[in-house]
C-alpha cells in the first residue's frame, strides 16, 4: 500500500519536476490513497457523494502541489492526507455561503469541529491498526472489539493462550508506535 514514491519527487525542486514525474506522482497518489480518502470523505460529508468527491480531489491536489509532505521521512502520508481532508471539510463548512444556509438543526461550528476531530482520530487509529501485522491486528480485533477472553481468542484463532497474551503484549506496543508515528497522542 505504501509504495515508495520516486525519490526525485521529494529531492528535485518543484520547478524542475518533469511532466512524467508529475503524472507519475498523481497516479501514485490516486492509486494509493483515493480509496481510503473516499471512505473518510464520505463520512466527513455525511454521505454527500458530490462533496466527498470534491474533497478527495482537493486533498490529492494539495498533496500533488506539495510533494514534500509525502516524504515518508517527514511522517505518515496518510495522516497528512486525512488531516488535510478534515481541514478542507471544516473550511467548507465555515464558508459564508454555508452560514447563510444554516438552519436550526445544523450543528454549531464548535461541535462540527469537535465531531470532525473525533472522526479524524478514529480514522487515524484505524490507519494505525491497518499497519499492524495480520496476527497483531487479529488478536486486537478478537480481544478488544470482539470482547473475547484470552481462552476464547485462543480457540477462535487456534493458537495457545500464552501466544494470545504475548501477541496482545506486542500488538499494543506496535500500535502505540504506529500512532506516535502518525502524530496521534493520547
Amino acid at each position, binding site marked *: 500500500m505504501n509504495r515508495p514514491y520516486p525519490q526525485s519527487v521529494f529531492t528535485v525542486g518543484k520547478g524542475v519536476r518533469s511532466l512524467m514525474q508529475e503524472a507519475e506522482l498523481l497516479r501514485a497518489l490516486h492509486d494509493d490513497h483515493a480509496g481510503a480518502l473516499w471512505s473518510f470523505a464520505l463520512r466527513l460529508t455525511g454521505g454527500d457523494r458530490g462533496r466527498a468527491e470534491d474533497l478527495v*480531489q482537493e486533498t490529492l491536489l494539495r498533496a500533488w502541489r506539495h510533494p514534500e509532505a509525502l516524504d515518508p521521512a517527514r511522517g505518515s502520508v496518510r495522516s497528512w492526507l486525512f488531516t488535510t481532508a478534515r481541514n478542507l471539510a471544516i473550511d467548507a463548512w465555515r464558508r459564508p455561503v454555508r452560514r447563510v444556509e444554516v438552519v436550526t438543526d445544523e450543528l454549531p461550528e464548535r461541535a462540527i469541529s469537535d465531531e470532525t476531530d473525533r472522526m479524524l482520530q478514529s480514522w487515524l487509529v484505524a490507519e494505525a491498526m491497518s499497519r499492524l501485522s495480520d496476527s497483531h491486528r487479529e488478536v486486537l480485533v478478537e*480481544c478488544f472489539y470482539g470482547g473475547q477472553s484470552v481462552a476464547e481468542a485462543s480457540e477462535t484463532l487456534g493458537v495457545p493462550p500464552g501466544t494470545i497474551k504475548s501477541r496482545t503484549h506486542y500488538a499494543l506496543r506496535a500500535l502505540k508506535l504506529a500512532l506516535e508515528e502518525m502524530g496521534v497522542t493520547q
Partner: protein
Amino acid sequence: MTRCPHAYDDGAYVVGSLSTEERRAFVNHLPRCPHCKAPVRLLSGLPALLASVDTESTGILGGAPIEMPPPTLWPRLLTATQLERKRKRRRGRWLTVAACLFVLLAIAVPVALYAPFSPVHRVTQGGQVSLAAMSPVNGASMVRAEVGVVEKAWGTKVALHCSYPPSEYAGEQSYSLFAVSRSGASEQIGSWTVGPGKEITTDAATRFRGKDLAALEIRRSDGKPVLRRLV
C-alpha cells in the same frame, strides 16, 4: 534481571481479556512490580483510542470491502493538474518578462542617475583635454554642452563646447558658465550667446582647484541652471 511471570499479561489486561482469576492475580501483583507497572501505564490510553474507531466505515474488522472512489475522480484530477500546470507556465512566462524588465531597470536607472556624476576626466599633463557631456538639470534642455578640466597650479582650466540644435522656432540665448566649489560657493567663469544650429568652443578659468572644484554649471540669463556636470 529476573523475568516477571506476568511479563506478557499487560496487553491482555489492558484490553480486558484476562479471566477473572488472572485479572485478580495481576492487579495484586501490579503495585509491587515495576516491570509491569510502567508498561500498563504506557498502554492504558490505547483502549480509549481503539474504542473511538468507527469500525463500520473504516472497515478495520475486515467486514464489508471498502468502497472504491467514483471513476470520475481520476479524469477530474488529471484535468485539474493540467489546468494548473498551464496556469503556472503562463505565470512563469509573465514572471520571466517581469524579471527581465527588472534587470533592465536595475541597470538602466543607476546608469542614468550616476553617469553624470562620474568625474570629468582630468588631464594634468598638457595635450588634448577630453570632454564629457553635461546633464540637464531640470528636465529636457535644447542646449548641449561638454566640459573638460585641466588642473593648474593657479586653479583649473575649463574647456567648453556648447551647441544648439537647429530649430526654426528658437532664437539666440545667452548662457553663463559657473564653477561650484565643494563648500557650495559659485562664481561665474564665462558667458556667451548661442543660437539654433550654432556652436562655440572656448576655455575658461577658475581659482577652484582639485577637490575644491565640485561642479560646473551652465545657467540661463535668468539664473536658472540648465546643465550640470559633477567634477
